[in-house]
């Protein structure tokens, strides 16, 4: 008997509206339902206003999708950032906080980085809707990391033993 995996439960899980009791008793325990990925994918596809198949979510608002132009990183709002060969963060809008007054909008004076150390908070926004999609906390000059490069074909073909949705 696996944990709950019906669409309603998964919708609520994604929305964050499950109570602690529901989360603890119905979703967190093992074993997990083996088709969780497919249910999540269906729920996510129902929620967007575009038709390209979602291949894998990268975070709350960005997805790798299949398209006529190949695989793209696409935002929930419909903005297409780049192909999966590129680092999507280089196709966002970014605000950099590195001065004390900028840090102190988020934390108090005592609880902010020391100005002499050169820390930055880089806030990456979707150019389509200015949704915040990533925050980096790094020193000056640190490369913008591409944090996840999924092996999409291997996942579908070898683990799920199916054809990726964009090639069906």
């Amino acid at each position, binding site marked *: 008997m696996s944990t709950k995996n019906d669409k309603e439960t998964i919708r609520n899980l994604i929305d964050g509206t499950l109570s602690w009791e529901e989360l603890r008793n119905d979703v967190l325990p*093992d074993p997990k339902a083996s088709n*969780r990925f497919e249910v999540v994918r269906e729920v996510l596809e129902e929620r967007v206003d575009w038709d390209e198949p979602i291949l894998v979510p990268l975070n709350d608002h960005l997805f790798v999708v299949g398209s006529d132009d190949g695989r793209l990183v696409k935002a929930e709002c419909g903005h297409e950032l780049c192909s999966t060969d590129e680092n999507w963060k280089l196709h966002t809008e970014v605000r950099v906080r590195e001065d004390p007054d900028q840090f102190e909008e988020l*934390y108090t004076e005592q609880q902010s980085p*020391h100005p002499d150390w050169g820390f930055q908070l880089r806030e990456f926004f979707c150019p389509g809707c200015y949704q915040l999609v990533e925050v980096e906390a790094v020193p000056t000059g*640190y490369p*913008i990391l591409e944090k996840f490069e999924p092996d999409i074909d291997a996942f579908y073909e070898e683990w799920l033993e199916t054809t990726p949705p964009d090639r069906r």
Partner: protein
Amino acid sequence: MSKTTDTDTAAEYERVDPPIGWDGQTLQEMLDHSEQQLEETGRYKGLEELEMKENQPFEYEQLYSRLRGALVSARETALNISASAIVREIGELCFQLYTPEGDCVALSTGIIVHVHTGSLAIKYMIEQDYEHRRGIQPGDVFCNNDNDIGNVHTTDVHTFVPIFHDGELIAWADGVTHEIDIGGKTAGHDLIDATERFEDGLYATCEKIGENDELYQDWKERGKRGTRTPMYWDLDEKCRLAGCHMIRNTVKGMIDDVGAETFKQFMAEAVEEGRQTLNERVQERLFPGTYRDTSFMPMPFEERDHPEPAASQDMMNHLPVEMRVDTDGGLEVDMTGASPPGPHTYNAAEGSMEGGMWVSLTQCLLHDGKVNDGSYFAVDTNYPEGSVVNPQDPSLSYQASWGSIQPTYNAVWKNISRSFLARGFREEVNAGFGMTSDAVQGGGQLDATGEYWAVSTFDLSCQGLGASAARDGLDYGYAMWNPESDLGDIEKWELLEHGAVHLGRRVKPNTAGHGKYRGGSGWEGLRTFTGSSDISMFIGGWDGVGFSTTGMSGGYPYACGYTVTAQDTDFAERIAKQEKYPVDDTPPGSLEEDIEAEDVDRSTAAVLFPTQFDNNDLLHWDMRGGPGYGDPLERPVEKLVDDAEKGIYTPDVIEDVYGVVGELDEEDREFEVDEEATEARREELREEREAESVPATEFWESERERVLDREFSDPVTWMYSGVFERSPEWTESFREFWDLPADYSISEEEA
């Protein structure tokens, strides 16, 4: 092997002539063969099938449960022999059973970080041919806390007892406790000002410390004279030895019941099952691909006047983690680009990094199943030799290795969490954790009795946990190194820490990392001193001057920490006159309102090297929150009302970060939202994003100019130059990202 004589004080055992391995093999031959089988087949001992598990499942599971029960029982019983609050109250101990080759079969609850550290020590003894040279005999007792060989940090001390049957070494029992003091340069259980081994304290390098079940007299004398808290040392040692003997009795009972051959088969299958479990779990929960994250460890040692000249500089460690989820269910963890080791106490040996891996994976991926060295065999790790995470240099200080382990595993957790999210398991996502660092440590002498009291409070084990993708992080209740984290009772601590009295402990507002789901909150504490002399205290706080990690999916890092000391105060007069005195520093800067002090030191460095205190001085510290998850503007208003009323965030931060405008009635703790103003403020914050941001390519151009001009702070230059010197691969990736000339370099001389 039968015992020939029993006396009240010791047993006497018949000697066993080498070879002591199975079927006439030496231990080295067994180890070589086992490694060869793993290399050739990919399976532990080349096991094609788990025959016993498949054909006699009940007997197999019964043996595992009995063994696991014995290990837990040994822990729960033995800890009552100890008097140290670390062991007795917080349970900072663990027992393990290893094969003769040193592969962990099962372990108890507790500080399970040691699943592999004991393994390395046993393998060291095998490779150094203790079998013939030092001798491994029934009734022998060995001790190790040498980090370069197999340990997490110096104050973790292992006791090993070999278990013999019929002339063969069947297994090893191992017990480890975390000492309250180990006779290092200063008092404390995680020294922060040691810079080399010779300041770390008492070291035992796989040392034989007893025979015939009794500890050597000279070894006991060494502990008595070599530590500041000899009673705790002595009782902890007895606790470890008693636990190992309990395990030995159980193993012998199991062999009596099922026979030695069955027990041997069981051990091998349990390890192989552990390996297979990890592969299966990876395929069930993760998404194949490559993941990257980096943590940083700022060390503001110049700013805080480190007492050793070589270490009195501001430094920062670079702890990058590239993780690969293979299609065959394997995991690879690669730290290419990690900083070189340094004149600090955060050097971490390979064994301690492996320990960090297991204490992490058992919490996020392997909640169940057989956790043992089988899981270790399923993960390929690269902790680069000569780096801070694998120095291969016993002369370094390893007192506070957690200073590298914890930030590293924040990056590992984020990588694994990205994989959970990709796979749809949002509830398993964890944005990381507040680094526990080390709160107040030190000690003094109680005037009334002349007794030395040590402060090694483990209330540090309650930090904020990172948010998941479905809920907020746990408030002030988590430590990555011990899944059974516990703040402990102040009253219990004060029974031992006689001279250091708590004035207050409370939720620290604005410490939780922002996000749609916020990180868990941190807390703060304030102490004074009384009735004592020779008081020396320190604080090993991290994340003071900068961030070591961040949040996920738009979540922010938790707030930085700080410390305050107030010396030569009017505290005693205030008490005598029953006047108000400080119990916290909330809001920050308010502590001084209720105390007169000649000397107030307020530092965002969060670290304080050993400092002399007098009675009635004050010492303030704070503990970290957890990182957040998701865009803060998506956090529901009702949750922010709750945050305001619980004091997690202050109204000004709620307005500036979350765009929720309201008024807090401090008396009734009720927060009333101004809905219209909230709507307008949220819209304003969205508009600010557009107005204040630039295309990332534009940022890339401007930041590249700063990189070309080497506009780095001194500690950042220290970090880049060390990595450039050590890692050509990482250097090349840096040059490639910023499109730099092939001869571009960063060195401290160029700064």
